[in-house]
């Protein structure tokens, strides 16, 4: 399992009710269910991925986060997870608001466009960056709204969203992000993980 998922799992206490938005093949859901006795639900847009989740015995709803989160009542989950998907929505702000309405807390992870390899790629190659977390070409990427860890950090602050925990991830290295090291983390992490609440 991805290190990212381990970090997410460590943020969640046992026996909680969790919604994984964009749950893909259900790897994280299954881990949370088996290891933390989590009452887990998934929302996934791809029919193929939904079938994979069903084959794992997971409860998943085929749907689109931009349209289908509204059916869940306020604060009906202890945690709502959104892993590396925020940048792919037409309206990320709306989705973020919905995550924080549906969940008591939300865990959002973002591929960091401020990562040095991304900057390096653009600066020296002059073409759109392709990295491990951003594997697609400019013409076929699902990502519409790329941001950096710094962008996201400022964005949530401006919306009066509370950041409980925030981690910078670089391969297997996990470190805490705070106001004073933001510039450095924004350069050396390829992934940001945020535990937030409104």
């Amino acid at each position, binding site marked *: 399992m991805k290190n990212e998922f381990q970090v997410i799992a460590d943020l969640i206490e046992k026996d909680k*009710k969790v919604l994984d938005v964009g749950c893909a093949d259900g790897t994280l859901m299954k881990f949370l269910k088996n290891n933390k006795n989590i009452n887990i639900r998934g929302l996934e847009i791809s029919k193929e991925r939904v*079938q994979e989740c069903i*084959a794992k015995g997971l*409860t*998943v*709803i*085929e749907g689109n986060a931009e349209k289908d989160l509204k059916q869940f009542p306020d604060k*009906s989950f202890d945690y709502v997870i959104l892993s590396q998907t925020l940048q792919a929505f037409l309206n990320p702000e709306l989705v973020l608001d919905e995550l924080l309405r549906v969940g008591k807390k939300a865990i959002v992870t973002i591929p960091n466009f401020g990562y040095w390899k991304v900057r390096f790629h653009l600066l020296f190659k002059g073409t759109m960056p392709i990295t491990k977390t951003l594997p697609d070409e400019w013409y076929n990427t699902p990502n519409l709204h790329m941001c950096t860890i710094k962008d996201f950090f400022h964005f949530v602050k401006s919306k009066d969203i509370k950041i409980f925990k925030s981690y910078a991830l670089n391969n297997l290295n996990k470190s805490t992000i705070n106001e004073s090291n933001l510039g450095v983390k924004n350069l050396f992490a390829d992934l940001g993980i945020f535990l937030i609440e409104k």
Partner: protein
Amino acid sequence: MNTEKNIKTLIVKKPLKLDCGKTIKDFPIAYETYGSLNSKKDNAILVFHALTGDQFVTGINPSTNKEGWWSYAVGPDKAIDTNKYFVICSNVIGGCMGSYGPSHKDPDQKIFGTNFPVITINDMVNAQYNLLDHFGIDKLFSITGGSMGGMQVLQFISNFPDKSKTVIPIATTSSHSAQNIAFNELGRQAITADSNWKDGNYTSNETNPGKGLAVARMAAHITYLSKKGLQEKFGRKLQEREDLKFGFDADFQIESYLRYQGSVFVDRFDANSYLYITRAMDYFDLAKQFNGNLSEAFKNTNAKFFIISFTSDWLYPTQENKDIVIALNSIGADVGFVEIESDKGHDSFLLDVPDFLSALKNFLDKSYEKN
């Protein structure tokens, strides 16, 4: 139990008060079972049939000598694996395959015809509930069915919230739409316009409104398919002729196909039953039973729901299935949902649609593992 004509029948002694106000008792429910009930009695699946189905879910139907209506889904090693599960299905009341219906005789030994009480989906499931007592089953492992079968699934779990562990409504709705009522009315008008119908008293005259019933079936059959499916299967292909005949015979294969569908249907189905069952579908509005709040219908159940729709189903479209998902999510119920890609229309749930069958199998088997 009597086994006349291979039909197993349970006589329900207990009076059943119908929605129309009348009470019936000592009435027959015809049923069939597949697989065997285990010692813990926790492997039973109650299957509900659709408008023109019957209790013969799989294998050879002794009445038609054709494959049962859900042979693709039910049987040994199939999605609903009868090596593992005990499948029960009964003919709905109002039907014509042995359960109490308009072709039965009233206490004065006169055939009911349209004097049979108007029945509802609620009446159907209340009648079928007696099968649980009959088999000594405290809790079913699952209830499932497509179309009108799905309506019965929803009504059953609403009426008996702790009587099934899992709930699988397929290609269905919680409230029959104006379009669907319209198609049903078309079918009923075709039957009642047939001069042989005679206000429903045809059976005693030994003639039946076969032409009207066939037209009803033909119209309904179109609604079970999709435009794309029809186009791909038939297109403008001609029926055993080189060119158009400039007449009103079946020039096109689609005409011939529909005529055939109509003609085989009248051999196995009763016109009055068609009136009664379509009426029950039209009256179905689960939300209305709960003052317009569909979620209330499910608030007392802890069952695990899995709802399935099909992309090309325009009779019970995805949105109507999703409305059920939404009602369940709004009360935090355990609900999964998938829309299966298929160009086979509403009939997809009856056909060989591998993604559907594997989703159904995976959901059941994974849920059963956790027993």
